[in-house]
């Protein structure tokens, strides 16, 4: 049991928390944060798991860096959209509106 594995396990916990938030919370920004938490969890696992086995491994680190950029891009896009959505409709969640009988983010 190395500390790397601990990172990975913590990542698993973060994933669970993030997932919960993503599914349960309705405020869009919170959802977005939950997504980021989950993303962090994934990155932790990604970095932690291989390093636990074969020592420092630059490849997952690079991957995670790329992943972070992608996540930032996605977050930014989401924020832009949410902002405009709020501006147009005055709402912060997707649920409970007329014209949208579908609930939840899926």
């Amino acid at each position, binding site marked *: 049991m190395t500390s790397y594995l601990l990172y990975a396990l913590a990542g698993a916990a973060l994933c669970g928390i993030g997932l919960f938030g993503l599914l349960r919370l309705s405020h869009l920004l919170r959802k977005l944060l939950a997504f980021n938490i989950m993303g962090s969890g994934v990155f932790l696992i990604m970095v932690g798991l291989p390093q636990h086995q074969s020592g420092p491994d630059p490849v997952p680190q690079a*991957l995670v860096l790329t992943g972070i950029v992608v996540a930032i891009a996605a977050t930014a896009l989401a924020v832009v959209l949410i902002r405009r959505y709020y501006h147009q409709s005055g709402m912060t969640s997707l649920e409970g509106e007329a014209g949208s009988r579908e609930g939840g983010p899926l």
Partner: protein
Amino acid sequence: MIRAVRTCFIALACIAFSAVLAASIWAIAGDPGQGTLPQLLSENMSRSGVEHPVTAVLLNFRSYDTLLEIGVLVIAGIAGISMSKTTSLEDPELRTSDPLLYALQRWFIPLMLVLAGYLLWAGADRPGGAFQAGAVLAATGVLMRLGGIPMDFLRPGLLLRLGLVLGFSVFLLAAVVSVIGGDAFLAYPPDMTKPLILVIESVLTLSIAMVLLALFVSAPVNDAEDPEEGDPS
């Protein structure tokens, strides 16, 4: 009531998910290591043109990932500027004028610019690189924004768009230039690897900063919208 039950249900599901995930991680961790990749990496480091392995992976071995990643970032930037109302990305209503902040900025901004330059440079042999530098650069911009410095130069005009894609375009050109020499896409000419990576890193820093800045500078939202198809309007 239903809400609570639903919450419980989701919570249970998420806990179960975490548990299964952890179990899987444990199981995988229990297996003997398979990876020959770090070894392979270190064997090829000399040909990568940089000393730091992460940068080597990012900008040489797996540069295609990075190229596309920058593309993703550009997309986000495009989406951001596509919704701005005015010719400037800045919302004048949010502009503050606090003398203290203004004074602080005069200290901080040059410092941060230097820091960004350093990070960029450091990427060659230790942690650091274009993205980190770009992030710092963007942070500088955010700081300026918060401090009330007018940022009218961020117009969603040709210049801004050029700035957004500058890094990406240079990267792309570097990727394709080798093809003319009959090599694979993204293969750098052997003797030019290091300078090329440096150039790419530099312009990427600029572009990343530009994108982040464009996204985070609170542009006023455009009210105009397309009618939905078929709406008689």
